[in-house]
């Protein structure tokens, strides 16, 4: 984003100064950070309004209805069903506004129930398919892995074998850890739960470590922006 025009130059300076204001929060809360926060939050609310209108309301409701009314006589039955459905949604949506009245606020339960029903109904089968089935399928692996075609002691790939076994043991132990309604007081249960916790901790540590690189990349990118685009870019803009 090295600046080419005057507006770009102002933009880059603004971006750089605002970035520094955000960084200043790391030292302590201060007035500059509060200012940036106010601008950021306010701006994102504005952007939310704009996106809701131009990406949702206008193309999905206004434009189709204009087209629908323009040729209202020749519309097929399906389009009428569509129009009725959209009008119904509109009415449901309007019920949200009942929140402004103390007496009729309960009417807003209808649209909420509708949205929650949509979300959960959609989520149930998808959850089974993409989470339970996919993960179960991925865990269906043989405990013994052979290097070649031959089935012999000497041909066992020990690393893969041990790895697969530990994977299976881990999945079972962690699943066991998540049992809530059984009393787990005997030795076996406690050992299994402990092992489950061990797997969880190893996994979390690994996830944490794995993310470090990506986050540092972001910071490097940001510092490069400050250095290259802001300072050097401004110098270049003024012909240095």
């Amino acid at each position, binding site marked *: 984003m090295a600046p080419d025009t005057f507006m770009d130059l102002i933009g880059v300076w603004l971006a750089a100064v605002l970035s520094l204001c*955000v960084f200043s*929060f790391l030292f302590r*809360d201060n007035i500059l*950070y509060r200012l940036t*926060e106010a601008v*950021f*939050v306010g*701006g*994102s*609310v504005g*952007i*939310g309004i704009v996106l809701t209108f131009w990406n949702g309301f206008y193309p999905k409701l206004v434009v189709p209805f204009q087209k629908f009314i323009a040729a209202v006589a020749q519309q097929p039955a399906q389009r009428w069903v569509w129009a009725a459905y959209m009008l119904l949604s509109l009415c449901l949506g309007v019920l*949200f506004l009942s*929140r402004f009245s103390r007496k009729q*606020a309960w009417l*807003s339960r209808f649209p*909420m129930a509708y*949205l*929650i029903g*949509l*979300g*959960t109904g*959609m*989520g*149930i*089968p998808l959850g*089974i*398919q*993409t989470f*339970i*089935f*996919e993960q*179960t*399928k991925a*865990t*269906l*692996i*043989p*405990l*013994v892995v*052979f290097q070649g*075609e031959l*089935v012999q002691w000497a041909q066992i790939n020990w690393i893969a074998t041990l790895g697969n076994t530990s994977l*299976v043991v881990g*999945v*079972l132990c962690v*699943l*066991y850890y*998540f*049992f*809530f*309604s*059984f*009393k*787990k007081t005997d030795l076996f249960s406690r050992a299994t739960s402990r092992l489950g916790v061990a797997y*969880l901790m190893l996994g*979390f*540590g690994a*996830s*944490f470590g794995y993310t470090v690189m990506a986050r540092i990349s972001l910071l490097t990118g940001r510092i490069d922006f400050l250095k290259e685009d802001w300072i050097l870019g401004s110098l270049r803009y003024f012909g240095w």
Partner: protein
Amino acid sequence: MNVLATIDATWFDLDKLNVLVALVILSALILYFIYHARRGKALFVRRIPGLESVEEAIGRATELGKPMLYVSGIGGAGDVATIAAMNILGYVAEQVAHYDTDLLVPCIDPVVMTIEQELVKNSYTRAGRPENYKEDNVCYLTGEQFPYAMAVSGMMVREKPAANFFMGSFAAESLILAEAGAATGAIQIAGTSAEHQVPFFIVACDYTLIGEELFAASAYLSREPLLLGCLKGQDYAKLVIIVALLAGIALLTVDACLPSEFSQWFVQLFASAGG
């Protein structure tokens, strides 16, 4: 006959039969135990350390006379993790209502905000202290992830809540919230279903509910037999999955040793349509 075949093909996706079967088995198990529990037999539930500390956190906040902050994630109202978070919020609000401390609930989704306003208000009423409820405490901040994280960080630094709760579904902002909160010295209790974010909560918070524990929370806190029954049903569903896993792994291991490929049918049971 032919007609039947076409109807089948257009009105029911046979490739998804496995999902339907699993859905029926699992929900039957859960529903069975829920209705079983209605008869009112006392049910056991194991200790969940994160939840036991909820009362401790509330106690400390009231002792210090400082507010509490409850973040219910960035999911929408249709997200089951958000619903689980709302259940915990109901419990927390009822506990808090007795004291003069504020419960701040900044929201990222207007629908969630509407529900939570109602929820907190009803909890206060149930606790007999409707006058303590302030509508502005449950508020909408903005609909976007990072501005929201920034605003909540600012809130934590300025209002200095004594206890922070982060429950629900989270993305990258988890650590921003948790670390900014840790810097203020608050007791922090987190719980999320997003497995990628659990590590960040674990390192930055005092107690963390891992994955499914978030869903078990409402049963654990309320001890309502219906919900405990549901928990029992969930456990049996898990048992079914474990048995299926064991069977499949045994079959595949036999396969690898023979070597043959006869148990592929078992793996195919879990195949998703089109994939």
